């Protein structure tokens, strides 16, 4: 019997048990929520190093922890937490310290609407897709403010480049998802995944998958689009002055954003949680998402960086026009009745 407010210790224990076993608490703290996200970020840092090391015939982390240096990310975390936080003089202190927290916040908040399974979602809202884009489109301005706050030349140039790049690729990313919305008839991410039960949207909307994938590579500042942190030119780009805990928070934010964008690809194009029934839904979702993340990471070990004018030209001319043309293609596909067998 749960009573609120509790008066006796037994009622208090009953209330706490009721809260801990509630679906909301489990989704927020354990599965799609905090513990799962932290573990995935720790895994991704290790995974990216190992994968790039394999591609470039290096060895990668080997000695920290058990097989394959699995504890290396923990060692890095401990190192960064105990390091001194260096703030460059004349830097804007509140912004320099606050923006990294804001980055983690902005990249973790959209996970509330990502459905990891039919019931494994924190908040099933009707504007899920718009919510995700609203949060991620705040990222470039955060980067620019951080770059400005550190009051140093390399970060400032990196921050400006990041702003230009992310502004150029936001529109193709945003318009290319329109064909998915047309096919599913909803902005609710749970409904979008439910509409893919018979056919993943990568088949009818293949062009928009290509545009979306290239656009998120640029949004995530992954090679070949990592101009904002181009090491030979700008040292480390917009986070040159970041050290210790600030550096760790920025990287947590970036890896969470990588996972967020990969899971968005899974939700929009790869059928979300759907898969053969011998594995539970969230497992399928995580497998697909990690495969997408792998394909985002691999070009870093393979391709060189492209020039800034090429980058902007590709974004505004090629991708935007393909994304707009794709709308007509999708309308034709829907009205031709070719997709009727799959209930679209």
């Amino acid at each position, binding site marked *: 019997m749960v009573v609120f407010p509790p008066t006796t210790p037994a009622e208090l224990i009953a209330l706490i048990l009721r809260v801990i076993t509630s*679906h*909301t608490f489990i*989704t*927020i*703290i354990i599965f799609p*929520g*905090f513990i799962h996200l932290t573990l995935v970020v720790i895994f991704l840092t290790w995974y990216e190093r190992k994968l790039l090391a394999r591609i470039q015939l290096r060895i990668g982390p080997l000695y920290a922890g058990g097989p394959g240096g699995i504890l290396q990310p923990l060692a890095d975390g401990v190192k960064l*937490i*105990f*390091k*001194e*936080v*260096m703030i*460059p*003089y*004349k830097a804007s202190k509140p912004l320099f*310290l606050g923006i990294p*927290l804001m980055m*983690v916040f902005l990249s*973790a*908040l959209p*996970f*509330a609407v990502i459905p990891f399974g039919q019931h494994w979602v*924190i*908040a*099933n*809202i009707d504007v899920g897709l*718009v919510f995700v884009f609203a949060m991620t489109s705040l990222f470039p301005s955060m980067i620019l403010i951080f770059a*400005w706050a550190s*009051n*140093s030349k*390399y970060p*400032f140039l990196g921050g*400006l480049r990041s702003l*230009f790049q992310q*502004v*150029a690729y936001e*529109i193709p990313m*945003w318009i290319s998802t*329109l064909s998915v*919305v*047309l096919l599913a*008839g909803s*902005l609710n991410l749970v409904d979008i995944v439910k509409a893919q039960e018979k056919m993943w949207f990568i088949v009818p909307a293949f062009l928009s998958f290509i545009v979306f994938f290239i656009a998120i590579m640029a949004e995530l500042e992954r090679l070949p689009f990592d101009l904002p942190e181009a090491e030979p030119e700008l040292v480390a780009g917009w986070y*040159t*002055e970041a050290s*210790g*805990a*600030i550096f*760790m*928070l920025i990287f*947590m934010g970036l890896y969470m954003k990588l996972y967020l964008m990969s899971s968005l690809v899974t939700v929009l194009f790869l059928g979300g949680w759907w898969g053969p029934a011998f594995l539970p839904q969230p497992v399928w979702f995580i497998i697909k998402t990690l495969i997408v993340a792998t394909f985002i990471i691999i070009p870093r070990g393979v391709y060189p960086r492209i020039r800034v*004018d090429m980058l902007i030209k590709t974004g*505004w*001319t090629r991708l935007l026009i393909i994304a*707009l043309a794709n*709308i007509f293609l999708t*309308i034709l596909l*829907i*009205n031709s009745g070719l997709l009727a067998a799959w209930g679209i």
Partner: protein
Amino acid sequence: MALNPWLAIIIWAIIIIVLTGPMLTLPMFWSRMKPDPFRDMPFESGQVPQGEARHRLVMQYYPYLLMFVVFDVVGMFLFAWGISFTRLPLNASAFVILFIVLLGAPLGYALKLALNKENW
């Protein structure tokens, strides 16, 4: 799932702040926080930093930014149309399609201006 989903988002936001905040505030207690005029200089390839870091740069990005503003708003309207597309008759959608086609002309002109490298 009786809880309002927006309330769940607010709880999730509070949880993020409560659990990530200590990552920044706790190191302030145990790490050495002693300002050092030489070490705290902004990094400039080992040189003493010269001049103003927050300077003005001339880059003619405004044609792109104008396109960004236009297409952001257009995208919003297209999404509003996209949700109800399957429920609308096709001749209702024809006007939206006509609008996108008409938008192509100014887009082409803006791209022509923006890609002219003499303007950069």
